[in-house]
């Protein structure tokens, strides 16, 4: 096999050069002390929490609000993911909310007035067996019916799109085809959090870091405030947007949620010349990879097997995904591992999010995004803001209610996601 990248001019892969980064303003958001009272409080200063605050202020005119973050802003999963954005989910409910999110992504940089390197370079999801081809084609038709852009590619078309991929029939998991979502892509993840933080702060939202929630002021099953390491703050509406720590907050409020917290690891290579101009995912060999703007390869796979809050996992999980990556992309065999990290992801039994009301009045929850929450950041914040402002869910998050585990109306996205959740 010849690697076509060897014949390209240095520093290019056909279309693009490695990008230069824009200057950051001296201050992105105001650092404030918490007030005694707010109209609404969001617990969790990650991507989804900051997006919720921004849309509460922008769409619903609620500006007397605060975001409480126990660590530093964007220190959790928003900066620990592999930045993949797509909306080609199987079920109608999922396609609707993820597609809404993708549409918001498409104008987000203009909307926030902040660059975040959103790049619609496409997302390729490979099929490696007959049953894989059937399920991916089913997914492809379901996407077409839901108005989500999707294409079916033959192995030759995959090779044309990604010249460095190995489509030989001799490998353990040969490429039999792929779905392709051209509007999918990546963004620079920490900048997404900073962009939302800046825009929310500009609208008057208080962003309060290093402040942990220690309890809730609940009387007559209605929330009236929150106890924190900086004292008690009164409020009439609280949104819990805490990803892997959601179970602990729910427990403080006296109810339980069907969430298990697991480590999800990712890794990057050092900066390399641009060799990969789209996102490639494979559930059968269990890896997903893209190349960031500066040139590092960004790889991820499935979660570690066990519950954990440690933000790290076993090295055998990394070894497994690298074996898969090297089989698909033989030129990666000479790349080095620069850095690995883990995030704590919140996994629901049906691998779909839980967004809406809780057993406690005026206390709302947004959790269960599991291994795929980054792509949903704008849409998640948008519907969570609607739910908090109106005290009732938007039609997009109505199906994702906590109560679905009682009614049995689950939204089983295990098989439809790019990798097993």
């Amino acid at each position, binding site marked *: 096999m010849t690697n076509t990248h060897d014949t390209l001019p240095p520093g290019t892969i056909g279309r693009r050069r490695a990008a230069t980064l824009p200057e950051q303003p001296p201050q992105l958001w105001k650092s404030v002390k918490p007030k005694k009272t707010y109209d609404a409080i969001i617990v969790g200063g990650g991507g989804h929490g900051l997006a919720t605050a921004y849309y509460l202020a922008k769409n619903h005119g609620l500006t007397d609000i605060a975001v409480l973050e126990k660590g530093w802003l964007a220190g959790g999963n928003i900066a620990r993911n592999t930045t993949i954005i797509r909306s080609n989910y199987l079920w109608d409910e999922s396609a609707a909310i993820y597609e809404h999110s993708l549409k918001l992504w498409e104008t987000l940089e203009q909307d926030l007035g902040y660059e975040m390197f959103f790049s619609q370079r496409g997302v390729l999801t490979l099929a490696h067996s007959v049953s894989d081809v059937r399920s991916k084609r089913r997914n492809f038709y379901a996407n077409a019916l839901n108005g989500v852009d999707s294409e079916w590619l033959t192995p030759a078309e995959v090779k044309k799109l990604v010249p460095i991929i190995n489509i030989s029939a001799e490998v353990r998991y040969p490429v039999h085809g792929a779905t392709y979502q051209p509007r999918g892509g990546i963004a620079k993840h920490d900048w997404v959090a900073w962009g939302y933080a800046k825009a929310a702060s500009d609208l008057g939202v208080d962003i309060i870091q290093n402040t942990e929630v220690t309890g809730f002021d609940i009387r007559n099953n209605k929330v009236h405030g929150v106890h924190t390491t900086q004292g008690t703050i009164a409020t009439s509406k609280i949104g819990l947007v805490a990803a892997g720590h959601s179970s602990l907050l729910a427990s403080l409020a006296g109810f*339980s*949620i069907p*969430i298990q917290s697991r480590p999800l690891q990712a890794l990057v290579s050092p900066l390399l010349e641009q060799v990969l101009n789209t996102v490639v995912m494979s559930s059968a060999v269990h890896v997903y990879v893209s190349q960031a703007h500066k040139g590092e390869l960004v790889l991820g796979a499935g979660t570690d097997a066990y*519950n954990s809050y440690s933000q790290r996992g076993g090295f055998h999980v990394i070894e497994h995904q690298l074996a898969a990556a090297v089989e698909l992309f033989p030129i990666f065999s000479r790349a080095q591992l620069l850095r690995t990290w883990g995030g704590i992801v919140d996994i629901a039994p049906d691998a779909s999010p839980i967004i809406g009301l809780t057993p406690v009045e005026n206390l709302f929850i947004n959790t269960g995004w599991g291994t795929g929450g980054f792509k949903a950041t704008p849409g998640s914040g948008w519907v969570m803001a609607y739910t908090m402002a109106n005290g009732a869910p938007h039609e997009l998050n109505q199906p994702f209610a906590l109560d679905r585990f009682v009614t049995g109306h689950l939204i089983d996205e295990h098989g439809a996601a790019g990798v097993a959740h």
Partner: protein
Amino acid sequence: MLPTKNYYMLHIPCPHCGLRNETEFHYGAEAGVSYPDPNAMTDREWAKYLHIRANPKGWLAERWVHFAGCGRWFNLWRNTVTHEIGPVYLPFTTQPKAPNDLGQEGSKV
């Protein structure tokens, strides 16, 4: 000890086969969840049995199966922050106490 304990993979003491690598095991989440009588419960109680499992930050009593060895299920205490492993015990035996007296922070069902 530190790198293998925290960064490589878990070393799990199978009560039948001894200390083995994590890759020989499958995980079974919270231990000691007994099967209730479905006819004696409301939908909400049944949903709780089906879907809700302990997810504490700290010590968790959990199930593992040694699929690549003896093939048997057993239980152990493991700390979900440090990944330390505490007492190991067999199913249907009395659950030992968690390794410290602090109890579990967070949701226990």
